């Protein structure tokens, strides 16, 4: 069993060009028939009259990567995937920018679609990552996943 723990953290926003590059790399994998992608984007939520300007993400990185490694192994056990890529931003991500990118690929469409959805759920529930919502007036509140 391989014990290579992959890094998932990226400083700052995830660029659409990075996503395109990631998609491009799969054109040589000609047993893939379906790709599923989920992206999280920072919302300009209004909370008690104040607008969210950005979310500042921090993580307990060591623990998060260890946990993500377990999730990865579980998902590969459960679904016949060719590829699985996960990236999460750290630092300040402005409203409208992308902070999460999950990408799965399989021969037929269903495993990619189901695995992608399950990774997003597990990642939100299990990874020690915290988002601090920074309002336009520089006050803040801590986000909580429901």
């Amino acid at each position, binding site marked *: 069993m391989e014990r290579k723990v992959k890094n998932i953290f990226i400083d700052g926003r995830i660029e659409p060009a990075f996503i395109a590059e990631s998609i491009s790399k799969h054109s040589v994998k000609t047993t893939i028939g379906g790709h599923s992608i989920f992206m999280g984007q920072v919302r300009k939520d209004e909370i008690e009259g104040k607008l969210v300007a950005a979310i500042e993400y921090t993580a307990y990185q060591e*623990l998060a990567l260890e946990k993500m490694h377990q999730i990865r192994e579980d998902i590969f056990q459960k679904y016949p995937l060719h590829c699985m890529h996960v990236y999460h931003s750290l630092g300040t991500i402005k409203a409208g920018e992308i902070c*999460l990118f999950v990408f799965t690929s399989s021969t037929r469409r269903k495993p990619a679609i189901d695995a992608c959805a399950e990774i997003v759920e597990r990642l*939100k529930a299990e990874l020690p990552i915290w988002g601090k919502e920074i309002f336009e007036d520089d006050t803040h509140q801590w986000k909580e996943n429901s």
Partner: protein
Amino acid sequence: MEIQIISFGKISEFIAHQKIEISDIRNTDELKAYLETSFPLLSNMKYKLSLNKDIVQENTAISNQDTVGIMPPFSGG
């Protein structure tokens, strides 16, 4: 013995990273009681502990030089 306390998210605003000397605390349940007394804000919050590189699921023995994380609910993604 001495343990290292690290804190995250909302909790990092009132508990700084610190080394603490504990004599009569042997496990994570006892540590929780100690932390909630020392930092009363904690007793009204949901939080989890980590012990070294694991999230604490049940009462676990603590050893000298362990690292304990205090983590509010996650909000990644």
